[in-house]
């Protein structure tokens, strides 16, 4: 053959990405996309016990209920379910939302304060679209919801993360940060928080901090995006008032969703926001998708009309409570004493922090050899922190898989702890560490300030250089 060009491409295909690279907008360059994403792709294999997802267990929904609800939609509202709907959502589904919000302790919501969205995720996107110019500051928790990170990045926001402890976001640190930003002439557009059973940390913002946060928002005239997907999935402890109910709707944008209480597949969420903000979000939504699915809105309306949504929610909460307990027991049995983790009162996630010489992105590679997966902590930070933490989901897989998955994670963690001990002469010999030790006592929640990552990171940076890339 000769070195010429051969048959020229007859057609371009979407796979030939380089042809389009020069056309990409500047913001695509800051969209997060990483080695971790490649690793995460492997976690979806059938032979992997994945504690990485954030999935509710939809197998708990009775197929016969699904069938009869769809039958009902077909019989009563076929044409309307197949039609476009108003951008702000159908009135019939807004009435369901009012019901859910009342259950959350938020009364007196008018249906014209609600924007029905395509999942809660769209609320995050629309809030950014409405408020964020490139370089604007968003204040978020550290760690924050990994799925919000691509949205923040797509709008080229500068995300400042505030440390957490077992009472949620450190409001004192928030105030210091706001002062500092103000001194720099930068005013954050909004504060993003998941007050209940936070994703990924599993902790709940305490009432005093909620009160103070709402006060701060009022004093400084800042918006707060309260993301509350799991509020009704409480397994222990007493409910805490939402920020929206404390604030009365002045500076809080409330994000709700049917994803965790019914189904993420129906892609329905909502925002309740101050009317001027809601109006702008509505325009943003028109551009994005005109309206959310009429079909699934009718499905939700039929489901609520049947009047058993709270029963289903209770059954879900009971299943998840048991799974949480199984996970916490398994963690106590299998993780070495150097590890710490949160004990969520609800939601879907436990956040564990390992000794800082373990990088959980690397650990995931080893864990995948054992056919188990989790989310490395770095996914929940925009600044490279979280390297020794991991997020574990307990809602998406059954109790046996949780036990076995945590056992396997415990095995690889113990191996690494043992190896590090051998390498530094500081720990037990690896052979001893490989034998299961007697189960250590569960961590004392008073002592386990597992989320104070900034300090840990500073210590690490102070003593040793960063050990290369992720």
């Amino acid at each position, binding site marked *: 053959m000769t070195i010429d060009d051969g048959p020229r491409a007859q057609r371009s295909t979407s796979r030939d990405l380089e042809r389009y690279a020069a056309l990409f907008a500047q913001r695509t360059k800051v969209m997060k996309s990483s080695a971790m994403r490649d690793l995460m792709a492997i976690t979806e294999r059938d032979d992997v016990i994945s504690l990485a997802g954030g999935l509710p267990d939809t197998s708990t929904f009775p197929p016969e209920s699904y069938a009869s609800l769809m039958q009902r939609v077909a019989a009563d509202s076929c044409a309307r379910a197949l039609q476009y709907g108003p951008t702000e959502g159908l009135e019939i589904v807004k009435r369901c939302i009012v019901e859910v919000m009342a259950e959350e302790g938020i009364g007196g919501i008018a249906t014209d304060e609600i924007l029905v969205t395509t999942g809660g995720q769209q609320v995050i996107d629309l809030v950014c679209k409405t408020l964020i110019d490139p370089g604007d500051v968003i204040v978020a928790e550290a760690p924050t919801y990994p799925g919000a990170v691509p949205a923040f990045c797509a709008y080229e926001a500068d995300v400042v993360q505030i440390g957490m402890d077992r009472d949620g976001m450190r409001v004192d640190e928030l105030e210091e940060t706001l002062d500092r930003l103000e001194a720099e002439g930068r005013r954050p557009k909004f504060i993003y928080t998941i007050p209940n059973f936070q994703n990924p940390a599993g902790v709940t913002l305490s009432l005093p901090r909620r009160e103070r946060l709402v006060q701060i928002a009022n004093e400084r005239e800042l918006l707060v995006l309260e993301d509350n997907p799991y509020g009704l999935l409480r397994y222990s402890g007493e409910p805490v008032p939402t920020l929206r109910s404390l604030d009365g709707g002045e500076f809080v944008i409330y994000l709700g969703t049917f994803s965790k209480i019914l189904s993420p597949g129906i892609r329905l969420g909502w925002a309740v926001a101050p009317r001027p903000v809601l109006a702008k979000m509505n325009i943003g939504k028109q551009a994005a998708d005109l309206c959310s699915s009429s079909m699934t809105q009718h499905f939700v309306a039929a489901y609520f009309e049947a009047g058993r949504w709270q029963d289903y929610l209770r059954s879900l909460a009971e299943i998840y409570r048991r799974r949480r307990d199984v996970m916490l027991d398994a963690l106590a049995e299998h993780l070495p004493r150097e590890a710490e983790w949160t004990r969520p009162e609800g939601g879907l996630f436990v956040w564990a922090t390992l000794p800082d010489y373990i990088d959980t992105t690397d650990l995931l590679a080893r864990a995948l050899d054992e056919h188990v997966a989790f989310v490395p902590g770095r996914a929940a930070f925009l600044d490279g922190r979280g390297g020794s933490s991991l997020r574990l989901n307990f809602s998406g897989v059954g109790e046996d898989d949780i036990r076995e998955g945590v056992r396997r994670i415990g095995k690889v963690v113990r191996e690494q702890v043992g190896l590090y001990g051998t390498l530094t002469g500081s720990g037990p010999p690896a052979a001893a560490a490989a034998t299961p030790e007697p189960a250590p006592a569960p961590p004392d929640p008073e002592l386990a300030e597992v989320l104070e990552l900034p300090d840990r990171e500073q210590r690490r940076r102070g003593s040793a250089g*960063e050990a290369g890339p992720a």
Partner: protein
Amino acid sequence: MSRVAVLKGGRSLERQVSLRSGARVEDALERLGHDVVPIDVGGDLVARLRETAPDVAFVALHGRDGEDGTVQELLELLDIPYTASGVSACIRCMDKVLAKHAMQDAGIPTPAFHAFNETAFKELGAAGALPEIEARLEFPIVVKPAGQGSALGIKFARTAADVPTALVAAFSYDRKVLLERHVHGRDLAVSVVDLEDGPSALPIVEAVPREEDFYDFESRYEIGRSEFVCPADLDDAVAARAAELALSVYRLLGCAGFARVDLMLEAATGELFVLEANAIPGLTETSLLPQAADAAGIGFDALIARIVELAGTRATAGA
């Protein structure tokens, strides 16, 4: 026209990259008029190969199984001609320690290194020898898993305190790791393709990372994260020497069809050092070998056509 099975994906950590390489190869093969059978490599690989009975298997796998000789061994058994290097060359390239020893023995410059498996630390007290290693290699030291194709698990140790952490990370990917002297300088890649006149070095690609201080896994595969210069702006003598080294390594390790050799041009001395050879380098939109081929006037389709053509001849020659 022939039936070509494109083997891609698999369970390696480089699965995503491989899927992208595979998809692009499939497009090219279709344009070339072949009957393309895409196979995402899994438990049914042997059955799928028997069932589809391809004339050629195009191995677009990276990392474990696909680049370490395992899949090649199966293809040999099934008597299916396949692209690129054979079993033994794959094994030599995939194991950086084997490759570096071969280079050292043949007098090809490669950065000084020491390699250990996990048992050396666990059972032979190798940790006690770390100070000697550190003294010989001098900081910063690069710690790498022996058998990871991409930059996953590669860590820098800037001080002695970083070494245990870096080792723990590298051992996440392989039971064998190496500690290597860090060569500070320019990151060069020489692609080699077996053309009519035999293995030929293509124009050199230099990777200039935009952000991080290291050419890492992320920037290697993401559009916009690294800047690639091809041909690299080098003295003729340096370029010629790099090409010569790459060809020597290609022959030394027994590569076939195509391969990519990664080198460092040390800033302080102007010396070239070979880091490793990749038996199945990436063929994605941002991969280096297709860029180098393009710079040599070989379009992607022509490159793929040549690689497929060689699969048949190597099988005959190797029989």
